[in-house]
């Protein structure tokens, strides 16, 4: 396969037990291949190890076994080739919105004039014109996450990793953010790995939904989503969408029950 961007090979993660407790198996050996321009959502109940998997890809955590290849090279740590958007608001509070977006470019040593152009184009793409010189604190949660997406994309990473980025937003904002992200992906041919526990979000955004089991996490199902693009929010009420949602709800429900020990 020539257009493989990311190759996760038998990656597992075991956290050592604290104070003599038994070690925690967060992630069973998991394999996943992400092709160029894929939009993959990883769906699973809380604590299923989906964030752990994403953090390993980002290089912020290390696999206990297995390896992750990005464009054929093994990942050894975090780097600018993988952009990450976190659930918590991680804009640098001492930098303005424009400076936040420029952060990665500055670290890379991109000349100032070029930096300014790239920042301006991303300000435009995430609809934050007029807020360039505001500080993060002055912006709403949705605007902060839009800035975070722009900051990650400004580095032009090979893959964009998102860890429940809209989890803390209200429903209306969340829906708008989904459309914005999808729009960027449709226009710019990005490769995206998106972790969520929201079924609707997983279907609406994805070209493939990966369903994970309860802890210890492993991949339970890999479901292609063939809904046409560009997608519009009205699609969420279409019969195709509903049947996919019913199918995934069933898959997830079993796992949630298991995770809660309620079965």
């Amino acid at each position, binding site marked *: 396969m020539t257009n493989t961007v990311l190759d996760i090979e038998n990656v597992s993660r075991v956290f050592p037990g604290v104070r003599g407790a038994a070690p925690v198996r967060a992630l069973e050996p998991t394999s996943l291949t992400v092709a160029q321009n894929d939009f993959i959502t990883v769906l699973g109940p809380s604590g299923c190890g989906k964030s752990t998997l994403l953090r390993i890809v*980002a*290089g*912020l955590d290390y696999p206990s076994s297995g390896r992750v290849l990005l464009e054929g090279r093994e990942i050894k*740590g*975090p*780097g*600018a080739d*993988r*952009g*990450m958007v*976190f659930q*918590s608001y*991680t804009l*640098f*509070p*001492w*930098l303005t919105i424009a400076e936040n977006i420029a*952060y*990665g470019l500055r*670290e*890379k040593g991109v000349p100032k004039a070029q930096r300014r152009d790239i920042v301006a184009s991303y300000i435009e793409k995430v609809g934050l014109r007029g807020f360039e010189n*505001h*500080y993060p*604190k*002055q912006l709403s949660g949705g605007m902060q996450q839009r800035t975070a997406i722009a*900051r*990650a994309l400004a*580095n032009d990473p090979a893959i964009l*990793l998102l860890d429940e980025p809209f989890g803390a937003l209200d429903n209306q904002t969340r829906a708008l953010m989904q459309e914005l992200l999808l729009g960027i992906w449709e226009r710019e041919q990005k490769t995206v790995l998106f972790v969520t526990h929201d079924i609707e979000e997983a279907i609406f955004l994805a070209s493939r939904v990966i369903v994970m089991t309860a802890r210890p996490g492993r991949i339970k199902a890999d479901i292609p989503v063939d809904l046409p693009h560009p997608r519009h929010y009205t699609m969420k009420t279409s019969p195709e969408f509903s049947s996919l949602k019913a199918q995934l709800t069933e898959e997830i429900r079993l796992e949630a029950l298991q995770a809660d020990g309620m079965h």
Partner: protein
Amino acid sequence: MPRPLEPVSQGARVALGISFFVIFLVAWAAATLGGFVSRTFLADPITMMQDGWLLLTRFGFMADIGITIWRVVGGFILAAVIAVPIGVLMGAYKPFEAFLEPFISFARYLPASAFVPLLILWAGIGEMQKLLVIFIGSFFQIILMVAVAVGNTRRDLVEAAYTLGSTDQGVVKRVLLPANAPEIAEILRLVLGWAWTYVIVAELIGSSSGIGHMIIDSQALMATGQMIFGIIVIGVIGLISDFLFKALNRALFSWRLA
């Protein structure tokens, strides 16, 4: 009665703050001018002001104030310039912290005033000795507090920086430092306040100038008015420097208030 945590208006805050000063002054005046306390032990406010005026106009007290400020600021800057980088490194690099933290935790409890006799032995009774007292009193405190602040930097900001391509050095310079700059400034403001108490101790022994020296001289003359004036001057200077520091911090770190 106000409810717990209920805010107070700006005007009422100022009025309340001033009224305590007034009450304090009135009580002092009543106790001394009313003859309840012997003048030998406590001067009344009017005598204190007269003594103060005399000190300033006839006995060159301005020069004493100047030299004391110079000692505090000099010793404090010396301590800050060395202590802040060490504190940042300790907060950032855990082996470095493990290496130094136990010793510094011990050293911070060594009272600066207890070093005065020793420092006189080592550095004489010149300016160096005064600066060293301030230095010892501030140095270890700054290191430990800065190390704690830097060590508590939000982990997710550091992780975000790494995913944006920062190197280890980049994270220290462009995340740990700016993220903690306001807190470091706060720490310096606090420690500068403490430094004022050390300088007087340094000047009480083996000194021929400074506010502390004047107070000791006045004791020999039983001039309680002068002594109280000296103490009040220290309080006022402390208040002013605190105010300036706060204003500077607000101006430098406006992002925090945005």
